[in-house]
Structures are given as structure tokens and as C-alpha cells.
């Protein structure tokens, strides 16, 4: 789950919100493989806020790590016991199956009446502002969530090329189906038959099909991701994120770049020589004459 600072009806301490001034909450974590069926997540919490620290000391709040499978049913909450500021979580990767999300939080572990903190941002909260009451489980501080590939998937992680398939549909129009773990480009039946023949006939024709079929489909998918559609539980999305990272696309640069350009980069710029290759195979291209 992605915690959103603006949903909280009370001040919450996080690097993504300025409800607090002069306070901070951060975590460091690492994974350590112990055996084939045990992976340890070692998480250390760093808190700079006396008010929250007192709540933890008085056992009214606690550090915790929430682990959730993105496309599996795995879900567990690991509160930190005692006054410790670190925890080692043991997970059997075979129980998890795929990517996980981790949220590191400080939460109330019992009802807290009338919570006040001198570090509430005076721009938003008066000096006598109090949170009337907090229930058990209410989040008081959080770090932006982390994603980790932990478990054993049933399949190899798809590459950008392998995350797309071309198949047939009885419909009249080409459709890009993003609902599964693989993106399906569905072509009308007769078109699909011809596609299969052409894709096997020559390298030039195969490259042209990449440009005319795969490239616009991938561009469409990237546009949907940029529009904010939620594909986090899809394996193709995970492969796409990996590839974008390797190409040094950060979140900002990805959102600002043209989707068609990103698609071309992901596919290795197929336009560069697709048409030349096609015409060369037909013996019709001569750079000097044309």
C-alpha cells in the first residue's frame, strides 16, 4: 500500500510531508540470505523527535514493518518489541512468490488521548493544537514504501521483449491488453495469420512489424502508465520498471518524456534501420540513387 500524507486527518511525520518542523524519521534496511528457505530483512529505525520517542518509551507507540505481496496473498505486520530501534524479519521466500512492498512506520499500539507535539509545523497548527485521540494502529510516522523482489516466481522475470505477446482476436480492431502478467497485442484473426507468416519470413520484415505493431502498442502502454493507471501487480510492469532504471529513467524524467520516444528507446530504436533492412532485402534500396 502506498501511504499518502495528504490523507491523514492529523499531523504525521514523514519526509514527504511538512507537518513537523525540526523532526525526522528514516530507516535503513538490507536483505541477507540465510538459507534457501530463509531470508532476513534487517531494518534499523532512526527517529529525531522527542514527543514520538516518549510515546515509544512509554509503550504507547511502536516501530513496525508491514510486508505485503504485490500480487500474492502474503501480508504480515512485524511490530518491534521493547525499546529497540531495529528488527530482523525472517521470511521464507517460497511463501511470498514475487515482489513485496514494505512500509516502515511508527504506529499507536494503544489508544492515545490528546496527543500534542512541540514540533507540529506552526504554519499549519496553532501552538495549542492537540490531536483529540488516536486509535490503536493509527500511523504517526512513515517512510516512503520500498519495493523488493524477494520470493521465487513461477517464471523467469520477463524482459521488455518477452513481456509482450502477439495473439489473435475475433474482434475487428487491434487491441492492447494490459490486464495480465504479460501484455497481449491482439490482432484480428486474419491479420494475425499474416503477422505470423511475415515475422518468420525475413529479418527486415520482422523489424518492420516491430515498428508498425509492437512500437505503437508499447507507446500506448507507456502513456497509460504516465497517466497514473495502476499496474503494480503485473509482472510486465515490474520488467518495465527494471528496464527504465537501467536506462537511467527516474520518475520525473519518465513522466516528462514523450511516450513514443521512451518506447523507441526501450525497443532499441527499431526505426533506425528497419526500412533500410526491408528494402535491402528486396534489392530496391540504393542510398546514392535515392
Amino acid at each position, binding site marked *: 500500500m502506498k501511504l499518502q500524507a495528504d490523507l491523514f486527518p492529523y499531523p504525521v511525520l514523514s519526509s514527504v510531508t511538512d507537518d513537523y518542523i525540526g523532526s525526522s524519521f528514516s530507516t535503513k534496511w538490507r536483505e541477507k540470505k540465510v538459507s534457501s528457505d530463509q531470508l532476513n530483512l534487517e531494518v534499523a529505525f532512526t527517529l529525531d523527535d522527542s514527543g514520538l520517542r516518549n510515546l515509544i518509551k512509554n509503550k504507547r507507540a511502536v516501530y513496525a514493518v508491514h510486508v505485503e505481496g504485490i500480487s500474492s496473498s*502474503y501480508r504480515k505486520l512485524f511490530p518491534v518489541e521493547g525499546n529497540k530501534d531495529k528488527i530482523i524479519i525472517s521470511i521464507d521466500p517460497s511463501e511470498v512468490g514475487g515482489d513485496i512492498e514494505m512500509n516502515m512506520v511508527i504506529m499507536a499500539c494503544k489508544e492515545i488521548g490528546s496527543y500534542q507535539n512541540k514540533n507540529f509545523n506552526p504554519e499549519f497548527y496553532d501552538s495549542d493544537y492537540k490531536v483529540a485521540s488516536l486509535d490503536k494502529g493509527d500511523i504517526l510516522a512513515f517512510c516512503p514504501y520500498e519495493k523488493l523482489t524477494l520470493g521465487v516466481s513461477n517464471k523467469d522475470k520477463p524482459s521488455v521483449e518477452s513481456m509482450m505477446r502477439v495473439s489473435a482476436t*475475433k474482434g475487428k480492431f487491434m487491441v492492447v491488453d494490459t490486464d495480465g502478467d*504479460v501484455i497481449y497485442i491482439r490482432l484480428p484473426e486474419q491479420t494475425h495469420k499474416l503477422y505470423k507468416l511475415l515475422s518468420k519470413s525475413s529479418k527486415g520484415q520482422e523489424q518492420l512489424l516491430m515498428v508498425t505493431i509492437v512500437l505503437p502498442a508499447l507507446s500506448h502502454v507507456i502513456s497509460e502508465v504516465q497517466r497514473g493507471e495502476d499496474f503494480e*501487480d*503485473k509482472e510486465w510492469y515490474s520488467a518495465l520498471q527494471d528496464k527504465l532504471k537501467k536506462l537511467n529513467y527516474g520518475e520525473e524524467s519518465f513522466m516528462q518524456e514523450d511516450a513514443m520516444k521512451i518506447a523507441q528507446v526501450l525497443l532499441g530504436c527499431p526505426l533506425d534501420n528497419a526500412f533500410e533492412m526491408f528494402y535491402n532485402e528486396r534489392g530496391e534500396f540504393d542510398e546514392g540513387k535515392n
Partner: protein
Amino acid sequence: MKERIKYVSDTFLDQFKVDFEEEYLELYKLGNKKEIERIFSNPQNVIETDTFFDFKPLISNNTADSTVTIENIKSIWSSLSFLAPVEAESEKLWVAMESTYYLDYHLKQLAELGPQRKDTSIMSRTIFNNGQKRSLFINNISILWWIAYYLIDDDNSNDKFHLVEYFVNNSYRGNAVAFFSSNFVANKKLALGVVEAIKELTEEHKMIENRYSYSNANKILNQVGGVRMLDLLTRDEAKAIIKNNLLDTEHIRVLKKAI
């Protein structure tokens, strides 16, 4: 009857899904059992494991009757309750099982589909093409296992299936997709708390259950979950949140008190 658990191979599953509309849809649409059995008896396509299970055939007739659904859920659970959740999430498992041991039931279910969007429904109930979590509750066989997994109430010594029986009492498929696709139901005590709340509200004659009972309950807990760690709630606390808030949400069929 002891049988081996089966999975389809990765290669076959990939090809099966890519070419489904072109090569396999008609087989399932026309109930071509012989040809499906031929394809799924090919050892290149289907792998038999060394894990045995106690196979019980599912009842294929009168499946609109909730007592039949409950019996089928109990049969699947009796046969396959030993599966770990990560195993029961596997498309490879259910595609193999539906086209082998449970083929009669699967084909009968497909034959009973209405004419609207029949091809789409056949695809959705045979292969996973609606996202991993949703697909588990659309597939004809996996939906039975997963309803049992989430709603068996081990705290009720009289009848641990009481919430299962309640849930499938009306048309449950839509409710299953709407409710169980939500992330928080992975915590079983939350799922039990919500369904128990809805059950009690209907038994107390405060509302008539409909699709919104489940989708709105999801929204309530998702809203709460935006600021609170739901996993810290007990089953009774989750139930109380739903009972205290559900009747005030939209499209709920609230029953007015008799004057």
C-alpha cells in the same frame, strides 16, 4: 481416489494463452472433451508431480443451487486444503486441474454461460487474463478453493463453514471478485470480520445484501487503512467498523424499522 497434482508447463501455458482465441476457445465453447483431454495428456504440456491428493468429482448439475456450490467448495477444500497459498495462486496449477480432473465441471459451467460476452467469459474462466488476484476469483475451480481459504471459520466449532454458506447463498461470483480482490483480505481475520458484519446486518433485518455491501465494506476499510495499520485490528474490531458505518454508505438497501 488418490491422484497426482498436475501443472501445465511454462512453455505450454504461454502458448495456450497467446493462441487461446484462435486455437482453443472453440474446444471449450463446444465442450470438446476428447480433444481437450488429448492436449492435456501430452507430457510436454502437463507435468504430473509427486504430490498426491484425494480427488473427489465436483457436482456439475444444478450449480445455481447454493447447496451444490457449498458441497463443491467442501469437496475442493477436502481434496486440496494442504496447498500453501503461494501454490494455490499458481495459474499453472488451475489451468491443468480444470482441464483434467475437473473438466466435466468446468465445461458444464462454461455451457451455462449466457450468450452475452460468452467468448470473453470462457477465456476469463479458463486462463488468468484479469490480473492475478481477480483471476483467482473468476476461474471456475480456483474460486472454490479461495472462498474456502478465506472464509472457513476455525473459531466456530459448531459449523466452520457458516460464513462460506452465507457468502454463496446468493449470486456470489460478482461479490467474490469485488470483495476478495482487495489487499486487506489477505489478512484472514479482517475478511472474516467483514463478512460476519454483513451477515449480522442482514440477519438483524437492517439491510438486504447486495454487491455494494461488499464493495462499500472494502472502501470503508481501505479508507481506514490509509491512516491505520489494519493488521492490528482484531476480527471483532473490523466487524464493528463495518457494522457502524456500512448502512450510511451509498446504494445499500437499508431496511426501515416497522412503525
